[in-house]
């Protein structure tokens, strides 16, 4: 998926950043959608997978910042750790997609996604423990907030993101990764 021009990748990044603002707003009327499927993760991961790591990184930082500035969701106090988490998602998804070539699109996608989701959680946990709330942050709190309470979101994202990629390819909006 590296055949896209710089301009096109820039514009895809722009709409993904916009979606970081739009998705939480659009779905907040559906009960619990926001807390259940963490809508902001999806455009960031997709942007990294499709456009590569520099764009994924930008989307991961700019998405939550812009959302916070425009809609005050997430609240400013939660913004730094969240921006770190999302930035690593975008970055890692992009790097993995470049590094992994198994000849099977779904395998590439899932490997990159899982690696990115793990890396983001690890780094965000480390950042919280060392920078944002040193001392009062425990291993149990980390596991609790990043794996236990949000495992539905993890499942939903793993189901949704490859589906979206597939649909975008079908609609010829992104080039196919492998010819078949």
């Amino acid at each position, binding site marked *: 998926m590296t055949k896209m021009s710089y301009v096109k990748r820039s514009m895809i990044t722009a709409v993904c950043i916009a979606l970081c603002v739009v998705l939480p707003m659009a779905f907040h009327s559906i009960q619990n959608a926001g807390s259940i499927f963490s809508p902001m993760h999806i455009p960031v991961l997709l942007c990294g997978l499709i456009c590569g790591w520099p764009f994924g990184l930008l989307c991961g930082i700019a998405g939550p910042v812009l959302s916070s500035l425009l809609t005050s969701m997430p609240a400013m106090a939660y913004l730094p750790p969240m921006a770190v988490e999302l930035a690593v998602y975008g970055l890692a998804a992009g790097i993995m997609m470049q590094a992994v070539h198994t000849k099977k699109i779904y395998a590439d996608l899932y490997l990159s996604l899982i690696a990115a989701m793990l890396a983001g959680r690890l780094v965000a946990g480390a950042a919280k423990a060392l920078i944002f709330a040193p001392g009062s942050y425990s291993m149990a709190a980390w596991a609790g907030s990043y794996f236990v309470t949000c495992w539905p979101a993890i499942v939903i994202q793993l189901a949704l993101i490859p589906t979206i990629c597939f*649909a975008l390819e*079908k*609609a*010829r909006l992104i080039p196919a990764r492998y010819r078949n």
Partner: protein
Amino acid sequence: MPVELKHVTCTYSPGTSQEIRAVTDLSLKIQDGEFVAVMGRTGSGKSTLIQLVAGLLEPDSGQVLLDGLDIHARGYDRSALRRRVGIVFQYPEYQLFEITVEKDVAFGLKHSGLKPEEISLRVRLALERMGFSFEEIRKESPLCLSGGEKRRVAIAGILAAHPGILILDEPVAGLDPLARREFLQMIRQFQEEGMTVIMVSHNADAVAEYAGRVLVMAEGRLEMDGDTRTVMSDLQRLRSLHLDTSAAGQAAELLRQRGVEIPDQTVRYDELLGALTEMMVKS
């Protein structure tokens, strides 16, 4: 299933400085089997009106009645409402998402409680109705089709639920003249088979040609309501509301000003043609 709105008021963003009254104290009744066109400028409350009828917006005050029952009353069967009222938004092709055309058309029937055979029969009929060969199209991805085909698949997805009331928002926008005529003739056929049709359109020619009744909205109020002939021949009033008038109506007006005797209330192309031919024969 007559639809009735009783003193409906609906606002966006209530309680903030950006409060917008979308419709104010709107009352109207639409009988079974009517072909109603809704005209009005952007922001006049047309889309609010159709979303109220489809039960997608809840009024701040007043009632929306379907078959005499308040659709926002406690205990009203909302999922039955969804099957009875179909709404085709502008650019309906944007709602496609499934892997195959067949699955996409069947999406709305998933929770209907119908048997699988019944569902697949309805999907086949809806697709054939929209001019597809079922066997050829069923396994295609709806996202790979051409623009016009996508729109027809999306509409098949709405028809498959067998709605009694079909609401269309600017259905002919972006269609070429031939496709537009075919599409409108198909809608008329639905109406002749007993479906109620409510169509929002800017296209005055299409409205004059196909609708039986016209509602004109302005600033959230019902400005005009009457049979197509009466409303569409009031060129002065339509112009003062900054709306389009039908080409035939305009031509009739010009001819009248030049002393040619064209009957009043000529708004359709075939009527104008008929009147002119008659005159030619006489002279």
